Structures are given as structure tokens and as C-alpha cells.
């Protein structure tokens, strides 16, 4: 086994991407994600890859679309305001069924907002941030190790379904350092070669077209139905989540990413006080682990949702478990300080006793 490294979450994303065979990066600097292009600009040329600091976020997402259309494993990264700029391109990628990785290390908004950690981009990420009624795969790492592992997984899922994928994290997970155990990437056996890619094979074979424009009668409807059929398959097969102490839990705490880390400690403290509390942490935000919530609340257990925003994921939790009481506690982005385990514990106590 290789030695454990001590790296930032952002660096782990970059390392995971290169290990997974990503050879094209297009981006534009913005805090708090600039460690990603910094690392890749240094390391990718050594691997024969191409790093481009584009003239803007919009240029970089369209470069990603182009590289993807040619079958390359490629990525871009940014933070909230930059991700907003990219949304047109993401919609085109979704419409053109172009895989590719988009990393959002969220900062607070709206607008230019601030540089503090935030989870206020949940809606944008999971509901299709651009126009046209699509979804992308959204994975939410909660540790430096997951930043590495889920980056690899995001590439694989994206290629498998020809759906763009996003790593959704924030300044906490991106900037903190933890141990990372790197491991070699192996491509899943079921990944098919990209026969659809526009790499030019002379006059042999059929003409290949990658596009999002469908003008023929009924074509676009069929195309949309096809995309949504893929989302349904992903909902069936690609849901990922972690549970802690759910077996006898009377109250189920739920949170993702950085907030889940804080919640995990709060749940441990609650257990030490004798409260039967468990944690359900979605790892895939789209597809959302609806069935896991239903499973966990079979005896009518209540849910308490923590987020670093004014309430977004809680909507999906409520939709997953109609009739179950779902409470919410969150902080708006840019509150100046992060919530602490003690703060979450106080919320757990008041809900548990109620």
C-alpha cells in the first residue's frame, strides 16, 4: 500500500482526476477552489495532458463540451458565481449527452457573495442549473479521501450514462487537510468505448453527430424522454449514502458534505447522552437516496435536516417521506462562523425531547 499523504480536499480532487485518466482541464481561477487548477497546471503537462486557463468560465465550459464531444476525459472546476456562468454550457452538455466533470467548491451567495463555505448551490446543482429540464449526476464528498474517490466515480458514472457529473463540495472540504490514501484507478469493466465520439474515421462508418438541437416533429420530446429514462435508471442503480447508528434510532439526523461531518460528531455526543439518534448522509445528491429515507423511517421516526443554507435539501427529504415529520435547522451562507457540533447537539436535544 502506498504511503498516506496529507493534502487539501481540493488537491485530492485534482489527484483523483489525473489518476482517473483526465487529460484535459479548462478553468478560470476563483476562491476557494484555485488549488485545483494550481495542482493540475503543474502536474498535467508531465502526463502529456492539456491545461488551459481560459479567458472566462463560459469559454472553459464550452472547451469541456468540445473535448467531451471528441471522447476525451475532461473537466472544469470553479466556485458558485463561476458555476452560474457555466450553466448554459452545462445545459448544452446535458442536451448533447456529453459526459464530463464539473467541480463546484461552493462559496456563499447570492451574487458575488463571499468566500465562506456554503451549501446554497444544492438547488442549482440537483435540479438542473441551466434551462431545459435536465439533471446532472451530483456527488457530495465529506472528506479528503472522498474528494479523491468520488472524483474517480464521477468520471465513470458520467461516461456510463453520458450525463455530465458534478462534485459538489464547499470551502470546508476543499480547504481542509486530512490523510489521503491514494490508490490506482481501474476502469469499470462495463464501460463501453465511446463510439459516438467525433474523432474522425474518414469515410468509413456512419456519420456521427453530437448536438442538442432537435427540430423534427416529435424528435425533441423523444430526446427528453430518453434523457429522463436514463435518470430513472440512475435512481434505481446509482444511489449512494452512508448511515451511522440507524438501527435503533428514534430521531434521524440527515446532512451532506461538510455539514454531515459536523452532524456526525453531534450524533456521537447525543449517543453519549443516551439519546437514540442516527445519521443518514446522502453521498449522491442526484440521484437522491429516497428509498433510504423511507427505509429509515418505517416506524415513523422523525427526521432533522442540517444544512449550511436556509433549507434546500430538506425539500427532497420531505418529498421522499410524505407523512413523516421533517425538521430543519440551518445557517444562511456567509454567516461568518460555521455551525459547531455543540450547536447541532442543542438542536438534537430539543427535537428529541419534544
Amino acid at each position: 500500500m502506498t504511503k498516506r499523504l496529507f493534502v487539501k480536499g481540493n488537491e485530492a480532487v485534482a489527484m483523483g482526476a489525473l489518476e482517473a485518466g483526465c487529460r484535459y482541464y479548462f478553468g478560470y481561477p476563483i476562491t476557494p477552489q484555485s488549488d485545483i487548477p494550481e495542482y493540475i497546471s503543474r502536474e498535467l503537462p508531465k502526463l502529456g495532458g492539456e491545461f488551459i486557463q481560459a479567458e472566462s468560465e463560459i469559454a472553459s465550459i464550452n472547451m469541456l463540451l468540445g473535448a467531451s464531444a471528441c471522447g476525451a476525459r475532461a473537466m472544469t472546476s470553479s466556485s458558485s458565481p463561476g458555476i452560474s456562468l457555466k450553466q448554459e454550457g452545462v445545459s448544452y452538455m446535458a442536451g448533447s449527452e456529453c459526459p464530463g466533470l464539473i467541480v463546484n467548491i461552493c462559496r456563499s451567495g447570492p451574487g458575488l457573495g463571499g468566500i465562506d463555505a456554503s451549501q446554497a448551490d444544492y438547488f442549482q446543482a440537483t435540479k438542473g442549473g441551466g434551462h431545459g429540464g435536465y439533471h446532472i449526476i451530483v456527488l457530495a464528498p465529506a472528506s479528503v479521501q472522498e474528494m479523491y474517490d468520488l472524483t474517480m466515480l464521477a468520471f465513470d458514472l458520467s461516461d456510463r450514462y453520458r450525463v455530465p457529473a458534478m462534485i459538489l463540495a464547499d470551502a470546508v472540504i476543499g480547504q481542509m487537510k486530512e490523510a489521503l490514501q491514494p490508490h490506482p484507478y481501474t476502469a469499470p469493466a462495463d464501460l463501453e468505448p465511446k463510439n459516438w465520439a467525433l474523432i474522425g474515421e474518414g469515410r468509413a462508418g456512419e456519420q456521427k453527430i453530437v448536438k442538442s438541437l432537435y427540430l423534427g416533429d416529435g424528435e425533441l420530446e423523444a430526446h427528453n424522454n430518453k434523457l429522463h429514462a436514463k435518470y430513472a435508471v440512475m435512481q434505481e442503480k446509482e444511489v449512494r449514502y452512508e448511515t451511522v447508528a440507524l438501527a435503533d434510532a428514534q430521531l434521524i439526523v440527515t446532512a451532506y458534505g461538510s455539514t454531515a461531518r459536523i452532524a456526525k460528531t453531534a450524533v456521537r455526543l447525543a449517543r453519549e447522552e443516551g439519546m437514540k439518534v442516527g445519521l443518514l448522509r446522502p453521498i449522491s445528491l442526484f440521484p437522491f437516496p429516497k428509498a433510504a429515507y423511507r427505509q429509515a423511517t418505517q416506524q415513523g421516526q422523525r427526521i432533522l435536516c442540517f444544512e449550511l443554507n436556509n433549507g434546500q435539501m430538506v425539500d427532497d427529504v420531505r418529498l421522499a417521506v410524505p407523512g413523516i415529520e421533517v425538521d430543519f435547522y440551518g445557517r444562511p451562507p456567509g454567516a461568518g462562523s460555521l455551525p459547531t457540533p455543540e450547536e447541532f447537539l442543542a438542536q438534537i436535544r430539543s427535537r428529541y425531547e419534544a
Partner: protein
Amino acid sequence: MNHDVFMAGFGGQGVLLIGNLLAYATILEGNNASYFPAYGVEKRGGAATCTVVMADGDVGSPVVGAPEAALLLNPLSMEKYYSRVRPGGFALINSSLVEDDGSSRDDLKKVCIPANEMALQVGDARLVNMIVLGAYLEHSKVVAMDSVKEALKYVLPERNHRFLPLNYEALERGATFCRQALA
């Protein structure tokens, strides 16, 4: 093992470096650690803080509300964070800069250490952070002094390795001071 420490000072005092060092030493010993920094946009003079959580299992929250230990390197940090230290915890106060001796609380252990003067005695004002880390290690025993010395080789860029002996001495002086203060 499950420990956490919060460190605060102004930019340039080396708070982030010793946070890094402590977390890395923990990992070198085969345990887990998270290092979570928060700092102003200024290169020098702004507030710099970090939290290090060390555990033999899952680290859990990288953010801590009431830390088990706090290293307070300047007056602003003392003012803002002293009251947050967990009852029964430990506070290390840089008495070279902080006038407040922490007597407002008697529910924790505290050591006032003249870190700036001690750093100058070792030979460089910039060794304040190492004096403080050495003292914390002596109190907490969270990692072995040797692991920190080993980690320092990785955390410091190669071109600065000629300063290693001076840093080692500062760590030892800090430890000695704390040992005597707690005796």
C-alpha cells in the same frame, strides 16, 4: 485517542504552519487528523486560526465549538476565544503580547508563556510558533516530539532545512518551560 486544539494569532506568527505540523505528525503516527484553517485575505497581520482534530478512529467534525485546548498567540485571539475553551481544558497564552493572564477563569489549566522573548533567545523572532507547539506537546502528549520533528522535514520546504536545528531547539525550550510551569 480523541483530541482537538484550536490555535489563533495574527498572520505571520506561524499558526497555520504548526497546525499543519501537528496534524501531519499525527498521521505519521498512524492515526487520523483534520487540519482546518481560517484566515483573512491579508498575507501578514490579519487573523489566522486553525483547528486540528486528532483521533485513532473517525475524525468527525473538523470544526469545534468548545476546544479541549487553545493556543492564543495575540491579544485579539485571547479576547475572542479564551471564553470558548472547554471547562477542564487547557489554554496556552503568549504572555509576550497578551497582558490578560487568564485569571477570569479557574475551571481550566493555563500556562502563560513569554514566547516572543523565548524565540529571540533561541535566535529568531519567527520561532514563536515552535515555542508554543513545544509547550502544547509537553502538556497534551498527543504526539511524540520525535514525530513532530520528523513531520517538520516534510512541512518545511527543502531550502529551509538548514533551519531545522533551530526549530528543534525552540520546540524543546517550549516543552521545558511548560514542564516547569505545570510542575
